[in-house]
């Protein structure tokens, strides 16, 4: 065989057969977004010194990014299949509302809850979080079933469920923040210090949201990069007809992928309760576009077949770092949205150029 280095058994086979040029190009383009992230950190660190560059602030950024991270991971799988999921922000809100309602309902009698007493909260809190995840998964599965069985474009179906999930969340909550949620979901669970250690004057604490987000990212990266599930995800996005011809059950796989996106939106909904102790229908309405932007900045192609979890993680951290750094710098944080828009356009432009160069080889 003409494969270079075919004899060395220590390297990854797939990488082994890749020519240097393509590896460099891939490195440059995935490196580009990483360079932006690194440059942002550097600029804020230089301008703001220890106000930005301290362990506590790094932790704040991680907590702030964790929710978007979950949505971005789910949306990455969907976009790699050449679909899109516009509903994740609304599904997040719906899941959070369901989780909050279930907690309130089961934490104690109506009188007790109104008096901020939650005798059954040990049961009600996990039950509520599980209900939120289930609700999110149900929306995701509904998306998948409608897209595959009615043969509808994912853009239209998820635009529809975006409205439906948001409306349903508002109906459930009467359009307001759910009152009388057991505070321990935030104080004892969301802010719980699982692992803590001191770095100089700072205390670094690993909290459940960050731990959950980390586990999700690692599992998702393995699933997309190393398993048959991931291979089918790429294959369907690359050429769905070819995937069908080799016997892959494309519909079933797509339903799973949209279900996964909904499930992760449900988990992100639970994070609202963990972080803020309540579910509000007012925020997160632009989270869908933030997640799609993050995935695309991270190198996921809207045409399908391309994308990595690592890239999406970087893409999700860029807005978090920007927002944090701008606030610390005393600049209006709205600039974050302006900057993300510009980075999105630039990232896709560079990616297109790279891909054209690669195809000419």
């Amino acid at each position, binding site marked *: 065989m003409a494969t270079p280095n075919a004899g060395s058994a220590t390297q990854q*086979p*797939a990488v082994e057969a890749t020519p240097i040029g393509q590896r460099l190009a891939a490195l440059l383009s995935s490196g580009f977004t990483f360079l932006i992230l690194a440059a942002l950190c550097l600029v804020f660190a230089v301008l703001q010194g220890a106000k930005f560059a301290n362990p506590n602030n790094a932790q704040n950024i991680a907590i702030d990014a964790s929710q978007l991270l979950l949505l971005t991971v789910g949306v990455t799988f969907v976009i790699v299949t050449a679909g899109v999921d516009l509903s994740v922000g609304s599904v997040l809100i719906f899941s959070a509302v369901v989780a909050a309602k279930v907690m309130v309902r089961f934490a104690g009698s109506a009188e007790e809850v109104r008096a901020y007493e939650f005798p059954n909260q040990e049961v009600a809190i996990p039950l509520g979080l599980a209900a939120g995840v289930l609700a999110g998964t149900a929306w995701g599965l509904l998306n998948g079933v409608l897209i595959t069985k009615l043969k509808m474009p994912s853009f239209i179906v998820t635009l529809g469920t975006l409205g439906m999930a948001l409306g349903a969340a508002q109906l459930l909550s009467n359009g307001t923040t759910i009152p009388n949620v057991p505070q321990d979901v935030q104080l004892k669970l969301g802010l719980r210090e699982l692992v803590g250690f001191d770095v100089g004057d700072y205390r670094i604490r690993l909290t459940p949201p960050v731990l959950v987000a980390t586990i999700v990212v690692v599992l998702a990266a393995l*699933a997309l990069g190393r398993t048959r599930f991931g*291979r089918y995800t790429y294959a369907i996005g690359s*050429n769905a007809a070819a*995937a069908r011809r080799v016997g892959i059950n494309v519909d079933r796989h797509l339903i799973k992928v949209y279900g996964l996106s909904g499930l992760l939106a449900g988990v992100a909904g639970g994070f609202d309760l963990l972080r803020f102790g309540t579910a509000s229908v007012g925020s997160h309405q632009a989270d869908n576009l933030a997640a799609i932007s993050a995935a695309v900045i991270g190198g996921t192609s809207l045409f399908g077949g*391309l994308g990595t979890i690592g890239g999406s993680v970087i893409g999700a951290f860029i807005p978090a770092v920007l927002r944090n750094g701008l606030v610390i710098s005393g600049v209006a944080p709205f600039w974050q949205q302006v900057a993300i828009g510009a980075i999105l356009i630039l990232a896709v432009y560079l990616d297109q150029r790279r891909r054209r160069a*690669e*195809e000419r080889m």
Partner: protein
Amino acid sequence: MDGTRDDPEPVLQAVGIDKYFGPVRALTNVHFAARAGEIVALIGDNGAGKSTLINVLTGVLPHDGGEIVFDGRPVRLSSPQEARALGIETVYQDLAIAPHLDAVANIFLGRELRLPGPLGALGFLDRRRMLKETEEQLGRLRVRVPGLGRRMTTLSGGQRQGVAVARAVMWASKVVIMDEPTAAFGVAQTGQVLDLMRQVRDTGIPVVFISHNMPHVFEVADRIVVLRLGEIVEELDPKSASIDDAVRAMTGSTRFTGVGIKAEFVARTGEGRSVGNA
């Protein structure tokens, strides 16, 4: 016409196949056989029913009359997966590869090898073993694919086709069907594909070769079956028949004097020009 010589038992056989699309009769009482150790070419003008016959034989389309006999037993093929499970592989005209995946991933698409043990149960792929088996098989077939780990988008059209052909050949344990496999090829690559077909035949696996390109057909086929308007009209021996004979049979214009000119035209320009979606 349906194989009366002392040939080995057909591996795959169409016996009196009829196929209708609504009121339109696409195939009429078609008898066709592929035997071990032969390359049988299936030729015909656009709309003659070549693709319909192939689709029936590979489980893509149901048929209305007659039966498919595989290894001496009648079979019902209700999906392409069932045909593949029997060892019948097809190279499609449009290749059916995933361009963002590499050659190994494409070759193993839908039949991925998983790691042994619990990781495999979780769906983890054994990429090392898939690469190794691909290298071995391609080496055995003397197919050269540069950069097995490269995305297919970075390969030339001919190289992509090479992967598609290699995939079919690698998995076909009984029959290989090639629908216009040389249509996108230059001279050198066409030679490779024709060689590959001979190698497959020599391992005892019959090759069904659908092509518009008469020189390619006459170069490689052991037997030529001509379809016209949904019927088998003639079976030719490429050693004794001429391209003129084949074109006459395809067009049915036996008595026209201009046939020789047309035959030459098709022979010279056959590749690409008259490739259709029959």
